[in-house]
């Protein structure tokens, strides 16, 4: 039985916090806190992937899609309702969605009634096509009406106008619901089929979010989302803030931004702590032991009477739900919902790098992996630019090559991440903080 020594777990965190402190002193505390916030969000995403891959060996390459669904939840929950759009197109949209759901239900019911392969396929095709035709006929005029309402600022249904923190829960539920459907279809097949299927679903989710303007304005973005923390401008007028500024001797503008970012750090740290605690409890429980048994030898676990399919589905839903929560937090932090920024390299594969580098199967490992990898991802840009600036100085100030290289220096971060992933996978396949061997 080899357990990690305490130092092996604590040291990487110490290194990370020293790095953030150095950023604070050398660059600025605003930058350091921005990085810290993104690190916390990334850690939650990495925990979601770790639950799926580390606990159960499921390959989810659709992280981007679940993140975006979490972001959508913020719009649906927190944005004020656009009453005019609801009056014009709300009933139509609801009816269209009802037709889609009814089609799915009727099709599934019909499939159990009809026997015979060919007949089943025929019934399914006819019902699905009819349902799609009906839904598009109903949706078309309604969405057009909604998108016509004050298109420069609104042109969508808006949300429910509820507190934004509620959206974090809804984001998790939305992603978990999507994971249920995908899991029903793709789980139980070869590992690479699940990887490809999830990648495909995430692309489609992004395509829907970018093109269905009535839902969340598509590529026109939803900006100015409500915040769970006070606005800098309002804060600067308060009594306690002026006192704080005079005590610290800092200028009010940078101080207010630091305070706001610290507030986010606090909120995110609470969520991360809660999820970490739950994940650790789950890992140590009999359920966690079953999960590991299934991962390490599916056939044997099945023979022992464990329902592998059900366990896989559950872990897939839980992991995706966690990613959805992180997605909602990310959109809240940004204060805007921008579907076009979701790129698979950044939102899916980077999270995978975090989990592999940190240590799959170990929640602390995934967390510190997310911290360090996000730090490297951000700092690779200034360091890369500086490095290229320094090495190409001999080419002269107005060299075309030098200009081009400097312009694209930020892209080197992809190379750094790829090399990092490959090196860890090869030389330390269990990551920075390896999984604890339990007997």
């Amino acid at each position: 039985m080899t357990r990690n020594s305490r130092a092996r777990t604590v040291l990487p965190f110490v290194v990370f916090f020293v790095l953030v402190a150095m950023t604070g002193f050398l660059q600025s505390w605003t930058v350091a806190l921005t990085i810290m916030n993104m690190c916390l969000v990334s850690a939650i995403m990495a925990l979601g992937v770790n639950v799926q891959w580390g606990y159960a060996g499921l390959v989810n390459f659709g992280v981007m899609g679940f993140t975006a669904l979490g972001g959508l939840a913020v719009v649906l929950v927190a944005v004020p309702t656009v009453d005019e759009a609801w009056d014009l197109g709300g009933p139509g949209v609801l009816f269209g969605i009802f037709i889609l759901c009814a089609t799915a239900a009727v099709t599934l019911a019909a499939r159990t009634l009809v026997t015979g392969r060919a007949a089943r396929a025929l019934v399914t095709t006819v019902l699905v096509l009819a349902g799609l035709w009906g839904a598009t006929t109903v949706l078309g005029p309604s969405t057009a009406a909604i998108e016509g309402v004050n298109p420069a600022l609104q042109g969508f249904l808006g949300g429910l106008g509820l507190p934004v923190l509620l959206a974090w829960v809804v984001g998790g539920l939305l992603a978990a619901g999507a994971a249920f459907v995908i899991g029903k279809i793709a789980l139980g097949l070869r590992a690479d089929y699940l990887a490809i299927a999830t990648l495909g679903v995430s692309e489609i989710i992004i395509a829907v979010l970018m093109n269905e303007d009535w839902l969340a304005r598509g590529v026109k973005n939803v900006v100015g989302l409500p915040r769970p923390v006070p606005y800098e401008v309002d804060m600067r007028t308060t009594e306690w803030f002026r006192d704080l500024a005079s005590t610290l001797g800092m200028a009010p503008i940078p101080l207010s931004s630091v305070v706001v970012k610290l507030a986010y750090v606090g909120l995110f740290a609470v969520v991360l702590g809660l999820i970490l605690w739950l994940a650790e409890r789950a890992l140590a429980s009999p359920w966690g032991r079953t999960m590991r048994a299934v991962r390490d030898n599916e056939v044997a676990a099945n023979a022992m009477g464990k329902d592998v399919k059900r366990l896989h589905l559950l872990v897939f839903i839980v992991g995706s739900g966690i990613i959805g929560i992180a997605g909602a937090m990310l959109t809240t932090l940004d204060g805007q919902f921008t579907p076009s920024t979701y790129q698979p390299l950044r939102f899916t594969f980077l999270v995978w790098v975090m989990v592999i580098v940190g240590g799959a199967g170990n929640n602390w490992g995934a967390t510190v992996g997310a911290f360090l990898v996000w730090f490297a991802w951000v700092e690779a840009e200034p360091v890369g630019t500086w490095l290229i600036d320094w090495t190409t100085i001999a080419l002269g100030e107005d060299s075309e090559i030098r200009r081009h290289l400097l312009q694209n220096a930020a892209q080197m971060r992809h190379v750094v991440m790829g090399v990092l992933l490959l090196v860890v996978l090869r030389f330390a396949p269990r990551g920075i903080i390896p999984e604890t061997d339990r007997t």
Partner: protein
Amino acid sequence: MEGFLNAIVLLANFALVPGLAYGSQLALGALGVTLIFAVLRFSNFAHGETMSIGAMVTIFFTWALQSWGVSIDPLPTALLALPVGIVFTVALVLLTDRLVYAYYREKRSEQVIFLIASVGVMFVTAGLIRFIIGPNDQIFTDGARFVFSVRDFRDATGLDEGLALKTTQLVTLVTALVCVVALFLFLQKTRTGKSMRAYADNEDLATLSGIDAGRVVTIAWTLSATLAVIAGVLYGLDKSYKPFVFQELLLPIFAAAIVGGLGSPVGAIVGGYVIAFAEVLTTYAYKRFLGHLLPDDWLPDGLAQLLGTEYKFAVAFVILVITLLIRPTGLFNRRSA
């Protein structure tokens, strides 16, 4: 009768010819994926970037040739530069195999580990491409634009609708045909090709029979990279070269390979056309097509489009899911999933 002919010509111009060209590009890409799967048994997520980097090198050499005034008008200069792109990419892929995959092959790691390693390779390649050529669109097509244009066709046949054939489309079709024929001759007739198929069928038995596993792997990578570069360049000629696009192409390419059956070359080709035509035909607006066939008052109000063009990925995905549900081994595969 003339209405019917017009309708057919219209559909051919906007759906069938582009679908054939796109299908050929997908088929070449899917062939590369399927060959690697047959021999190394993993889905190579870096394949899109392999296509992209090969196309990038070809573009650089094309620009060089253009600046030297070399041209094979009316054909695009990129065809001359293609061998350079292929040689570079094959060398790069073989180097990657030595540095990355060979170790896991020796250790007989699980296929999921290969999958994750290919994500690392994808990251490195994507970074290099964006660092070198930048993330923007590049246009490198030259030579004659059309073999025959809509106007030529109309003048020749006297129909209202016209059919155009772009040079790049013809080049795509011919190149794809040559590649596929050459590949099948190689796999069916040559000793090396047969040893490759034997290795794909049963690795251990083939090795015991004296087939050199290292050689088979090298050839599989070489073929896969060659096809990837050709597919990438043809796609770039037909549309335009954009680093991001190749990552988006990964889904239809995988879908094509899976529909046909991962590991089956025939399946990859059929799958490529199935996906391409499904995408094109479901996103085509049939209004004008129906206008030639139906009386005016029967016409639908809308565009008569089943699905917006933005959702063509969804078509590839739906076909993929249907395949996974009904026949997970694909259309042309004997091996179980």
